[in-house]
């Protein structure tokens, strides 16, 4: 018995003892629960994929890969293609990521790099995170009643003076890509900001000392040292924000105009996969439901690819900058 020498040692004067049977049982129970929870999540994802694929199977068989690059969604003729929706999803999300990313990272820098007192920073941070608690439909209504009237004159002016420029080639008739992307940017802002703040907070104090010790100005320390050091965390923030933008439904269904077209113009109405699903499902017949399931599968795949790519880039920066294997 392996414990024998320990028991002999225990007989003399020590107060140490081996863990009891009950303690060992708790230990294995805890491990079991942790494994079960992790396994359940994997099972859930597989179940959703399985169900979705099963429902979409007739559509996949019927339309095949053509579904990806088809540009028509005609229920009567039963012609289905989602290229405009893929375009709209990626375009609106990228615009939102650009705006939300810049502002989110700027907010994170402002809140963490001694620009304001840390108690005030906490208040600011709470306010930014409150943005995440506003329901999507409220954002949609705000977009319709507040944002669109505000940006319409600017859009008109841009279109009139710079019509040759592809981004301003159409007029803003109401809903469109610009208001949708703006609202989307505000919606992903808390995600990007909160996770970037954590990334900056994780930087050890000694790195800051090293930067200032070299004689950097505050701006140089932030731009040349703090930002690269936090880069892997910031990338994670951007990936999560982008993922959120890809899947956002309600506000976009209200703001993007649901037009089945591909245009570079910021003011043209467009459509996204999630918004297509939300607006078409309630009145869809059996055949269209199958096509919508296929579209949902496409959205799921895009999100999956984006996340994997983002993770790969993040791992790359961790290896490159932090020298970890």
């Amino acid at each position, binding site marked *: 018995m392996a414990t024998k020498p320990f028991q002999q040692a225990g007989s003399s004067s020590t107060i140490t003892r081996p863990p009891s049977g009950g303690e060992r049982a708790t230990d294995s129970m805890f491990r079991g629960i942790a494994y079960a929870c992790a396994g359940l999540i994997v099972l859930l994802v597989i179940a959703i994929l399985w169900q979705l694929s099963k429902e979409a199977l007739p559509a996949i068989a019927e339309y095949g890969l053509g579904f990806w690059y088809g540009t028509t969604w005609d229920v009567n003729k039963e012609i289905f293609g989602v290229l405009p929706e893929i375009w709209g999803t990626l375009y609106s999300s990228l615009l939102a990521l650009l705006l939300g990313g810049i502002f989110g990272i700027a907010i994170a820098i402002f809140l963490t790099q001694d620009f304001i007192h840390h108690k005030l920073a906490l208040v600011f941070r709470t306010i930014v995170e409150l943005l995440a608690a506003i329901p999507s439909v409220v954002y949609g209504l705000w977009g319709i009643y507040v944002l669109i009237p505000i940006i319409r004159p600017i859009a008109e002016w841009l279109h009139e003076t710079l019509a040759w420029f592809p981004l301003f080639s159409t007029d803003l008739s109401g809903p469109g890509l610009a208001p949708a992307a703006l609202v989307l940017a505000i919606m992903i802002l808390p995600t990007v900001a909160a996770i970037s703040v954590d990334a900056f907070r994780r930087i050890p104090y000694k790195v800051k000392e090293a930067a200032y010790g070299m004689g950097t100005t505050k701006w140089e320390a932030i731009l040349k040292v703090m930002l690269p050091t936090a880069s892997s965390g910031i990338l994670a923030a951007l990936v999560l924000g982008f993922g959120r933008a890809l899947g956002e439904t309600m506000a976009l269904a209200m703001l993007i105009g649901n037009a089945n077209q591909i245009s570079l113009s910021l003011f043209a109405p467009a459509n996204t996969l999630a918004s297509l699903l939300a607006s078409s499902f309630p009145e869809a017949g059996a055949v269209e439901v199958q096509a919508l399931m296929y579209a949902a599968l496409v959205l799921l795949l895009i999100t999956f690819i984006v996340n994997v790519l983002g993770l790969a880039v993040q791992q790359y920066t961790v290896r490159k900058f*932090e020298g970890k294997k």
Partner: protein
Amino acid sequence: MSAAAQTVATDTAEFIAEPYQPEGDTVIDCDVKKIFYGDFLAVRDSVVPVEKNKITAFIGPSGCGKSTVLRSLNRMNDLIPVFRFEGTVNYHGQDIYAPNVDPVVVRRYIGMVFQQPNPFSMSIYDNVAFGLKLNKFKGNYDEKVQKALERAALWKEVKDKLKNSGLSLSGGQQQRLCIARAIATEPDVLLMDEPCSALDPIATRQVEELMLELRERFTVGLVTHNMQQATRVGDTTAFFSVDISKGGRTGYLVEMGPTKQVFEDPQQDLTKEYVRGEFS
């Protein structure tokens, strides 16, 4: 409290060390009146001249303010919002605490190596080139980077992996990388705040040899916990102690002089006790 203890208490609370008059040229003339962190008086009344092309060692027990004084010499303490300095630090005759002096400029001429190795999360090459880029150096970067790494006794180990992250190196290598980073821009003075405390004996020996070589070109201020280190590399030694008689913990200079004299023929009883290892 006994009468004897009270006498000692008033002694340490009012004691001011005889200012050390160096024979050679000084680069920094530091005259600390008071250093505060908020309401806390950390260091009082210490005159510490730093001589040109010599290593000035700062020794003393924990909390005696030796690091605080060293970090005041290039205004590193300005990063701490509640820090307040009373006195003067004359660098080539210019008071670096004068209102028209930008701490950023001070730190470019008076470089620093810290207790914990703190390379930036970028490549070894970029770490060393950081200061060169910062100072808009126009010239051969490769040459300067190689020279700095050679001086820091790191070149042979890293010359084939300059693109690897500085953080992939071992602790001792990281510290030598930080030294290379600090000396690449050839600052006038190099301040080292316990640079060997995170290193093993072999790396410590390498860094000490490096300091002796650096002395030829730079002026070095060195804080160390290790008295042997002070005797091995220090030309001049400043001994600080901490005064706890008034309920605070205020550091002050007890004695400063040539290292040999401080260790072999100390003038103050406190110094005698400390260098004999009777308290730490």
